[in-house]
């Protein structure tokens, strides 16, 4: 059903840098899925006497954290937690955001007012406050974080879809579909959505990147994923706290976060240039 993807544009929008980003994303996903099998230690096993070991110590390739837990294992298991939360949040945001944008964009008038105002209410709330409230009510388990971040990223998807739908709504093939008595559902699903999906797909990795960043921000404020579950955000926050004692923790975890967020960002740019006809990249 999808239009055969334009491979010539593919090569043009994927520069070597973006291929590297794509490779790194694959690496992270692999690490997350295979974590239980490939990590050398149990990420929760404490060994306090042998804590803050530097990189390259015998049994711990990347050293140990403030509880003597193996950093490499926590990094791998942490990848799983980060991805699950980021993916969950992005899916929630995508589904709700796209629906709001689609309905608002297509029907216009009071539906548009309703949907776009809800989006503005979410935007008007400072993200951290929203996070604070929900975490304090429901505790900061992974599912709560998915809900909060999902909520916070709705505006990004909603506004993008709204703009794209407005553009496509007046296209003649949509008018034709209405003239030939196509049910509204079919028009939305088959005529409008596929033609706006280009930009939306590109927005997904960018939201993943922002979700991981926000997750680490929340951990810094003590609202992130409840310890002792390993999460990159938690490790960066702890790393920042113990920086004078053992900078390696901060360095490793922030590199992991930065590289992953960077790769997702670059992937998003590449997808947008490849799929979204409007964003032509002139070499």
């Amino acid at each position, binding site marked *: 059903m999808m239009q055969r993807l334009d491979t010539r544009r593919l090569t043009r929008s994927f*520069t070597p*840098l973006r291929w590297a980003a794509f490779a790194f994303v694959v690496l992270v996903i692999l690490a997350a899925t295979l974590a239980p099998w490939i990590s050398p230690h149990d990420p929760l096993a404490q060994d306090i006497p042998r804590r803050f070991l530097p990189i390259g110590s015998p049994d711990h390739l990347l050293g140990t954290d403030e509880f003597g837990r193996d950093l490499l294992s926590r990094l791998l298991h942490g990848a799983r937690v980060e991805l699950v939360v980021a993916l969950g949040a992005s899916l929630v945001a995508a589904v709700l955001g796209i629906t709001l944008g689609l309905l608002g964009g297509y029907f216009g008038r009071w539906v548009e007012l309703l949907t776009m*105002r809800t989006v*503005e*209410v979410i*935007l*008007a*709330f*400072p*993200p*951290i*406050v929203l996070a*604070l*409230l929900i975490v*304090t*009510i429901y505790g900061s388990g992974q599912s709560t974080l998915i809900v909060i971040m999902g909520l916070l990223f709705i505006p990004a998807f909603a506004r993008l879809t709204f703009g794209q739908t407005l553009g496509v709504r007046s296209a003649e093939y949509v008018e034709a579909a209405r003239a030939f008595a196509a049910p509204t559902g079919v028009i939305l699903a088959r005529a409008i959505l596929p033609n706006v999906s280009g930009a939306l797909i590109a927005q997904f990795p960018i939201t993943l*990147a922002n979700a991981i*960043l926000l997750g*680490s*921000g929340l951990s*810094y*404020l003590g609202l992130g994923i409840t310890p002792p579950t390993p999460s990159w955000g938690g490790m*960066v926050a702890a790393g*920042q706290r113990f*920086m004078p004692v053992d900078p390696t923790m*901060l360095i490793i975890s*922030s590199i992991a*976060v*930065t*590289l992953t*967020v*960077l790769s997702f*960002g*670059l992937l998003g*740019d590449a997808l947008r240039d490849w799929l979204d006809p409007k*964003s*032509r*990249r*002139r*070499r």
Partner: protein
Amino acid sequence: MVSFLIRRIATAIVLAWVVLTLIFFAIHTVPGDPAYQLAGGDSGFTEEGLQQIRESLGLDRPLGEQYANYLLGVLGGDLGESFATGQPVAQSILRRLPATLQLIAAAAVLAIAAGIPFGAWAGRRRGMADALMTSVTSVALAVPVYVVGALAVLLFSVTWRLLPAGGLTPFAEDPMGFLRGLLLPAVTLSLAFSAVVARMTRTAVIETSDRDWVRTATSFGLTRRRVFNRYVLRNSMNPVVTVVGLEIGSFLGASVIIERVFNYPGISTLLIDGVSARDYPVVQGVVIVIAVLFILINLVVDILYGILDPRARIR
């Protein structure tokens, strides 16, 4: 233009009201009864001690009633008194609001001053410049804010002792000290923002330079520089202004972390302390102020958009 303004302000008021109602009921359903915080100390909680506190704060009255007179209060500009200190919330917010506004204004100015030229340069040169700009901005967007803050403090304040590690000396007392105090937090906050502005400018410049009127201007015989400045950059400002408006909105959120790292006396810290002390009036007050701030900024952006793009004026 006037009817456009009236409608815009009307929606803004409705929005503020919705935010106020949401935050009121949200904070009141949060577990952690404020009375416990106020009873405090290790002297133990007697039920009647707690009840007495609740009464003095009016928490025992039905929620609907509390909401009603809170709403009336807000309309009269009175945001109620803080549970913890008894000081009027409006007063403590007003005392700290300038600091937050100064921080955001400084960060916005820095971001625009750095973002727009960098983006325009990349959009115009394309090729290597474009690749460089995209990767630099991606990195700037990828690094967690407080890591940057922590490193900045480590280098500039602790090791080189050039700038204060935190806090903010009021402008009146010592302008130089104020600037030195503002520099680090503003630069850190503006880092990600300038990346967004740069990327937005680059895209806008690339898209605008394909437009027909640029070719018309060239056909007049104008110099390449003049065509770029007056016909490409000038028109790119419209989308950039919209993005700036949106980003400043999300700024208010990000400033919480900056205020924590630099111990900066803004309203966000007031908010965090308020929530962790279940100081309902403070939380509600700050959220409303932030929401109103966000709405005002959007209003300014819309007006600016109308000035920049005559087509928008008829709306």
